[in-house]
């Protein structure tokens, strides 16, 4: 396998993991499990409601910056970046 293929494979692995987290915090916690999670509260927030209107958005921001960091390291490792 040449260098570019290896690079691409690792990239795909990162994307799969991060998109799974993306799905879990928005669609799973914010929508599918909303009724169940709404039985719990943190401060004045019902938990399912909080994930749907707040938590998922924070996770989205973090996910992109994690990807940026991972890919910058990967670019460096493969010599695509000084």
């Amino acid at each position, binding site marked *: 396998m040449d260098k570019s293929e290896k690079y691409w494979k690792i990239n795909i692995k990162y994307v799969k993991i991060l998109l799974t987290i993306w799905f879990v915090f*928005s669609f799973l916690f914010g*929508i599918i499990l909303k009724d169940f999670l709404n039985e719990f509260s943190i401060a*004045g927030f019902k938990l399912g409601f909080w994930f749907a*209107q*707040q938590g998922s958005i*924070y996770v989205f921001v973090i996910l992109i910056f994690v990807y*940026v960091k991972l890919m910058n390291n990967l670019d460096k490792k493969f010599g695509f*970046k000084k």
Partner: protein
Amino acid sequence: MSIQSWTYIIVGITFSIYIGIAIWSRVQSTKEFYVAGGDVGAWANGMATAADWMSAASFISMAGIISFAGYDGAVYLMGWTGGYVLLALLLAPYLRKFGKFTVPEFIGDRYYSNNARLVAVFCALLVSFTYVAGQMRGVGIVFSRFLEVDIDIGVIIGMLIVLFYAVLGGMKGITYTQVAQYCVLIFAFMVPAIFISIQMTGNPIPQLGFGSELISEHSTYLLDKLDNLNVELGFNEYTENTKPLIDVFAITLALMVGTAGLPHVIVRFFTVKKVSDARKSAGIALLLIAILYTTAPAVAAFARTNLLETISTKPYSEIPQWFKKWENTGLIKFDDLNNDGMINYSNDYSNELYVDRDIMVLANPEIANLPNWVVALVAAGGLAAALSTAAGLLLVISASVSHDLIKRVYYPEISEKGELIAARISAFFAVCIAGYFGINPPGFVAAVVALAFGLAAASFFPAIVMGIFYKQMNKEGAIAGMLVGISLMVFYMLKFKFNFFGGGSVDDYWFGISPEGFGSVAMVVNFVISYIVMKFTSPTPEKIKKIVDNIRIPEYE
């Protein structure tokens, strides 16, 4: 000083800044006109993307919609932010590496076909025109409400400003005005939100404030109070869903995928210096968007609580001054059905109060008794949000015509100078058409704007993603997928929104999914059709596979 004087001053200052930037950023080349020369920094692009993205709808309408929809409002909050994850992970870096000017250009080149290019141009124009008409209307509305000029004159003032910096400065002018507009709009949104959060809960951070206890009633959480008030008046609990969850799921997905497929958002990532900057600026853009998007649900909850407490079941003779002022604009209506002099607000036939959703942001500072300059700031923020989005869309329209149609299909011999003139002329006509729709809004605009996302999800997103991640995907597959996807979406929209093809009610929705969420279904159909058609047609040429290999790795820096 009066609200109106403050508004003239603040709007005047911000408009002078936009015009100053336009004069400073005049462009000479098509590369500057289409992609700002391709050397915008990651932070500048992040700010410009955030302003480009947050439209009059995000700034003026979203908090109000959430305030009436409660939990269901999450479809917009997650849908219009989660798409950036898709954009950063699946699209932006590769499209930047591809390094051309427009989205139809990527589709035309990757699928080695001018037919694919034309289908993409058609989709881009359809999506952008429906979207831009709403923006110009938004400009007119803000002008008319705060400066008491005619809506039409407001639209024309907005047109002139956009015309000036879009025609003169192209993408470069648009980028740097958007940076300024982001600053204006976020400041204008946050100041009243922080004030109100402190007033109601004592917490200066609105995101935490709406999960805190009320100052007026000790040891009662604001959201619990709101749930109770809602139930008392016959509404659904604020923190629970009214739409079926499957529809919430479908709408959220359609908005996310649509966001990632909107040409005016994607094209912003063509303007940065390098691939790593495309990823980084997607993160910065979402961070800056998230500031407003996490505040909006707080504003929604504050505004609804305030409204229910100050208006509902109060005698009309004792209502505050702002109520009467906004009554004049028709955004609040009170009709004393049972002649008892009390305002009866409820979820049934006895309701006597009509409240327009937009008022939740526009009148919020007055409802909370904030100083006049804050009210004026909201006007400037609304204008910044509408103008920045309109300009981004107009650039997509002008580039589709001058670059994709003229340069790449019908008249390839055109000189660079000629293309730049064509770009400016098409920008001029695009502004005029947008202004026309702003002044004479066709009834369907509001319905179609929400569906622009469905159209983008059903057409662009699958074609671009497969173009990058699936080398075998050929032109026949991609074209068939886009055509079937967008036709299905248009069919569903016409059937259930406009009563064509026999119409139908909520009970007839396929899988219980509304037209707003149907983009997710149409997207899946696009993927499936593309795959099947590809299996029966000729394989992708080797030359194209090499191009795909090349866009998958970042450049050597």
